[in-house]
């Protein structure tokens, strides 16, 4: 009999079955449920309508303020107040509000609310990030989240798994983000990845940092997949030690697991890449767009707002100045990431170089918070989406890329290849070691 993939094993275990196969619809136990400011009130309202007496477990419903803080408008301030009121009324243990805020997915991971071998869900699409620690992470609607808050369960279709086996050595400046966009370019939105579990393994995945794994799993939702997963290893253990809220089991795919498709990528051949405006699957190598004039650069989001992203930008911008034509904004993904970037000196290096630093949160990524794009702006972003109007004006163009390409481009005012820069002496930031 064929073996099972890591996603199938987790779904079998969490649904109390010996095994499951793709296509089955199963109810599974959910380890933790995240909801956040702008959809959280609807989630609790639906929960209240279900007739459950209490939350299934007050420690496992994680509430985060991220899209609306600090409120940039009166409307957002009012939404935030309503959200606070309803969270407090439900007596949850973990509420990360103003001052302790950050992007929900980053907090879920860095504070150990996601455990290998389990299933966690969230009411924001980038909940796929949770796969970085070897969990099944899934974005769901407010209805699904409310049902799970009442029952501790959710229904899922067991997905077919597509395997990406990553070999070779990472070139300097090439990050998890580049691999993600490279795969988007390989596969397009032609249905091959839609509803699939994407499993990343191989020697180059062992080399990839936890931050890089988070970027990679984070964007599986943008590829159209159900979830992305990296089986846990020593790096995962080290990441979770001391923060994990509970015990976990190391789980991985059987060597004879059945995949719907398998692809091998030699990462040595992948350089920095850029998604061109409007469609995420319109990806080119950085060489093809070098010299494209820009006026805004943004590094942040749940995809690339972590300490290592600040580190690579600081390594490139140290002792230099952002080009006068560029407005450059960087926003940490959470207060924890902010503090660590400060301790390491990255924040002062960046501020001296002329970078504006925003308050931890989702920032302008979704187009309604500080730092939005105006008419005709040409933005280079380390975020996750580039459809028309995503960051503000419908006539703004958004190029998506890695923090390394963003920082290199900040020096010249146009898209630049970081590999053309001299290697900084203090280049201690590694994505693949």
């Amino acid at each position, binding site marked *: 009999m064929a073996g099972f993939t890591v996603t199938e094993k987790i779904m079998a275990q969490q*649904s*109390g*079955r010996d095994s499951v196969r793709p296509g089955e*619809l*199963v*109810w599974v136990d959910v380890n933790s449920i995240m909801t956040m400011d*702008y*959809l959280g009130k*609807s989630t609790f309202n*639906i929960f209240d*309508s*279900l*007739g*459950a007496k209490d939350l299934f477990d007050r420690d496992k419903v994680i509430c985060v303020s991220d899209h609306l803080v600090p409120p940039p408008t009166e409307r957002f301030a009012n*939404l935030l107040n309503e959200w606070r009121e309803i969270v407090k009324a439900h007596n949850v243990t973990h509420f990360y509000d103003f001052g302790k805020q950050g992007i929900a997915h980053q907090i879920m991971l860095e504070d150990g609310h996601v455990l290998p071998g389990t299933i966690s869900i969230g*009411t*924001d*699409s*980038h909940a796929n990030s949770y796969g970085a620690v070897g969990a099944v992470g899934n*974005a*769901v*609607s*407010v*209805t*699904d989240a*409310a*049902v799970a808050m*009442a*029952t501790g*369960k959710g*229904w899922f279709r067991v997905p077919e798994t597509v395997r990406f086996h990553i070999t070779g050595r990472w070139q300097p400046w090439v990050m998890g983000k580049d691999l993600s966009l490279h795969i988007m370019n390989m596969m397009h*939105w*032609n*249905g091959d990845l*839609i*509803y699939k579990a994407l499993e990343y393994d191989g020697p180059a995945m062992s080399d990839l940092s936890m931050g890089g794994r988070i970027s990679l799993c984070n964007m599986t*939702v*943008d590829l*159209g*997949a*159900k979830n992305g997963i990296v089986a846990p290893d020593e790096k995962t253990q080290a990441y979770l030690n001391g923060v994990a809220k509970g015990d976990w089991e190391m789980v991985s795919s059987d060597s004879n697991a059945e995949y719907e498709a398998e692809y091998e990528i030699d990462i040595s051949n992948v350089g920095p890449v850029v998604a061109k405006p409007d*469609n995420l699957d319109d990806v080119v190598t950085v060489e093809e767009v070098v010299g494209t004039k820009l006026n805004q650069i943004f590094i942040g989001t749940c995809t690339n707002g972590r300490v290592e992203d600040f580190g690579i930008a600081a390594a490139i911008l140290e002792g230099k100045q952002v080009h006068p034509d560029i407005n450059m904004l960087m926003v940490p993904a959470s207060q924890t990431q902010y503090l660590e970037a400060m301790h390491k000196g990255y924040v002062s290096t960046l501020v001296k170089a002329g970078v504006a630093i925003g308050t931890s949160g989702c920032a302008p990524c979704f*187009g*309604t918070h500080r730092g939005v794009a105006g008419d005709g702006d040409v933005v280079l972003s380390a975020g996750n*989406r580039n*459809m028309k*109007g*995503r960051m503000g004006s419908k006539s703004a163009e958004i190029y998506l890329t890695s923090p390394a390409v963003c920082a290199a481009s900040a020096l010249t005012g146009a898209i630049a290849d970081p590999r053309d820069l001299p290697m900084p002496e203090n280049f201690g930031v590694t994505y693949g070691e």
Partner: protein
Amino acid sequence: MANNLKGTVWKAEGYVFAYDIIKQEFWTSALDKEENSRWVMGGVHSDFDCENGFKSNGYSFIVAGHNFAGGGKSIEHVITGLMGAGIKAVIAESFSRLQFRNAINYGLPFITCKGIEAIASSGDELEVDPISGQIKNLTTGEEIQAAPVAPFVAEVAEAGGLISYIQQAIKEGKVDELR
């Protein structure tokens, strides 16, 4: 779940993003079929970008290519808006999983059908049976077989959606039986 649905189809050209089905200014509006239907599809085509711009056409079906309602938005207004506008089923090459879930949770048939784009044009009359997956173009006489819906999906639709399904399970103390 109703079978033998009949009505007129609107066929999309290119990707249809959830962002365009419900434009960003309506993301935080209340989940209400009537309200959401007034502005549904506003970003998909300039003809639909006004009050009742899509709804007033009286379409019953949408036919689309890959990744219908993609772009990674989980908002349920996409489904309530389409239902409020009179859409009885969406038939596409593939669907974004977030909205595929939402459609199941609300009992709106999202039918996966390879080749549907080739046999349907805007304005054609279709007959659709979600349970069996049989689709007939009454205008051209062509027929095609789509993926039939799973029994669980029909069960949720029969209950009137996931919320009623779960309310009933909680009331009857049957939550532990959900497997």
